[in-house]
């Protein structure tokens, strides 16, 4: 029983990560109709916003400490971050400690700018091109972004810890009056879950309660006609792209403490996020979110030992099996709209 509750928690948590990535992707892929293979790269860049901010906050001046030596036997250079010298060691250390949450604020303008540049500079020429061309160009872009990050940050993962305040786990069991220390869940993952809920809610509200969503949907179905009605669809597409990039970026920032970022993490998530979006159904935001949670929970259950011993390797393929079954049972995924990318 505890095991099941824990796996549901895991599933929801995983699901919120999937849903968040899929949400950003579906804004571009499901709504603008651009097969954006660079979406994973945006997610990765988001995570590197956290790394970068951490680096910036850690910018240090060096002093030589003659009493200690480095690995070559020379006097050791001791680094003191500027923030610590400016704000005092305590406040400074606290700022550095909180670099991941701070990076959210940092990432929003950065990601929106990246989204704008990407859309204005590149993607806008590809709305009318075949999907295959979009794949080629965004894949190229993803590689380029990835290689740039690799060049500046290396290929290894970079530890990007959450603030100390979020270390440790919340004890659900104790709260519910069960055995303590059995149903525990890390604070940061709970934060991630809440954060995902807020972002998903925010995006939904924006698209639901403004006509923006309808206009973009219409623009994707028939740009020409929307233009005839006096609407500057290009601008809205750009905004949409910016939002999508920001969502991807924030998802990345928040994920950094769970999964130390490296340049490759975008590609690792790419296939999965496409699967989630398509299983959710093209053009449907709720579908993407639902599929994210569904696949997250399924994956968690499939990795339970009891199930694994029954069907070896099921945890490796559950997502794909589920995708196949869902797509065969429902022609347009869970909630897909007719006619969107069906040809």
């Amino acid at each position, binding site marked *: 029983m505890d095991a099941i509750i824990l796996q549901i928690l895991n599933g929801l948590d995983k699901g919120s990560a999937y849903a968040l990535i899929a949400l950003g992707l579906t804004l571009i892929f499901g709504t603008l109709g651009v097969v954006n293979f660079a979406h994973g790269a945006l997610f990765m860049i988001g995570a590197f916003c956290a790394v970068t901010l951490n680096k910036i906050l850690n910018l240090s001046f060096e002093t030589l400490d003659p009493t200690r030596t480095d690995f070559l036997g020379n006097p050791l250079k001791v680094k003191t971050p500027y923030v610590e010298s400016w704000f005092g060691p305590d406040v400074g250390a606290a700022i550095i400690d909180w670099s991941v949450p701070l990076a959210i604020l940092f990432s929003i303008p950065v990601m929106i700018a990246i989204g704008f540049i990407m859309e204005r500079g590149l993607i806008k020429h590809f709305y009318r091109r075949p999907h295959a061309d979009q794949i080629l160009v965004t894949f190229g872009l993803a590689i380029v972004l990835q290689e740039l990050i690799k060049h500046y940050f290396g290929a290894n993962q970079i530890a990007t810890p959450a603030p100390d305040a979020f270390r*440790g786990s919340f004890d659900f069991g104790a709260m519910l009056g069960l055995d303590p220390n059995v149903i525990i869940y890390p604070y940061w993952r709970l934060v991630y879950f809440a954060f995902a809920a807020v972002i998903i809610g925010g995006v939904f509200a924006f698209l639901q309660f403004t006509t923006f969503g309808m206009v973009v949907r219409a623009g994707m179905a028939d740009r020409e006609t929307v233009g005839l009605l006096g609407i500057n669809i290009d601008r809205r597409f750009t905004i949409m792209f910016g939002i999508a990039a920001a969502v991807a970026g924030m998802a990345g920032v928040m994920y950094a403490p769970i999964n130390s970022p490296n340049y490759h993490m975008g590609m690792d998530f790419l296939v999965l996020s496409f699967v989630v979006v398509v299983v959710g159904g093209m053009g449907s935001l709720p579908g993407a979110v639902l599929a994210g949670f569904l696949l997250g929970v399924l994956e968690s259950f499939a990795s339970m*030992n009891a199930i694994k011993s029954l069907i070896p390797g099921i945890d*490796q393929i559950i997502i794909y099996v589920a995708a196949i079954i869902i797509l065969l049972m429902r022609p347009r995924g869970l909630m897909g709209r007719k006619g969107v990318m069906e040809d």
Partner: protein
Amino acid sequence: FTNAPTGGSVTLGFNVPQSGPYADEGADELRAFQLAVEHLNGDGDGGMLQTFSSKVLEGNGILGKKVEYVTGDTQTKSDAARASAKSMIEKDGAIMISGGSSSGVAVAVQGLCQEAGVIFMSGLTHSNDTTGKDKKANGFRHFFNAYMSGAALAPVLAKNYGTDRKAYHLTADYTWGWTQEESIKAATEALGWTTVNTVRTPLAATDFSSYITPILQTDADVLILNHYGGNMVNSLTQAVQFGLRDKVVNGKQFEIVVPLYSRLMARGAGENVKGIYGSTNWHWSLQDEGTKAFVKSFGTKYGFPPSQAAHTCYVQTLLYADAVARAKSFNPCDVGAALEGYEFDGLGNGKTLYRAADHQCFKDVLVVRGKENPQSEFDLLEVVEVTPVDQVTYAPDHPMFAGGSLGACNPGA
């Protein structure tokens, strides 16, 4: 024989991961190779050539031929690695291939070199199979292996954590992971530990939460992570996040063990490695002369200390050159014969033997622990014990290594 050097130079092929998750390790290997070539050609400070027990290398290349090298990208895929190695052999006339950062690639390239008739001096490969069931006459491994990790680590674990422990394994679901799991399990069980469960995790997994929470349901009190690279960083970070290390089970503090450590990658786990035991082939903080010489020349050139992967690649290059010089021939069979059963010292791991029966080096193994108070960004691990070679030696027909045979050496066309 294949690619017999005709002109004034001889070409070595360094096949390392330049893309993919192990690219940094590959880059470090490449640095080491370049340094080795420099030293062989008599440039630089000579590095370990000064401390090497064999003195036949004179800094004038190999057998008087200048050493040149070509590089390629394995992409950590056996296919790509073989293609790259083939191009070195077919196009550039490389006579020895070295490098690599995973066992799958090592075994695949070793097989290729066997068929093509060149020598393979493997880089970082830890699976038992490389010199076990997949061993090849033309292939040689300096790096240690999973069995040795287990044999070295188990006594230290028993000493620190007691002999009455219940272990839970998370294992990367591919050949290397399996051999490591098997080795560690056997070694720890021999000392009285029990194994609660061994769970395979998909290679592509990045979120291990659903493999970690079931541990909370068992009475296991040690978690052993048979993971490497990104898997290791993520599973360790997440296990710590889940508060495993703060847990007390069966009245004992819960512990995590990472049997194969890589300093480069441990950085990705940050604080979380502190106090965690593991093993490693070599570490720059060793104080023997060979290590000091190598760290000095590497550190002076590149500004940071070398990794174990760099060390093994450097050493392998010297060993190959030395074997050629001693055999006075580039013929792979002669070189192989010179390496087989060769005993040497001064290359950082103390006295070492290249065993003839399986082409595996036998030397001391380091047990390390994540350092509590690192002095610098490179100072992540501390050596807690140097396990003597006798303790990690096994019979060539040990069941974990059985099944293959070296076959005959192949000098190629």
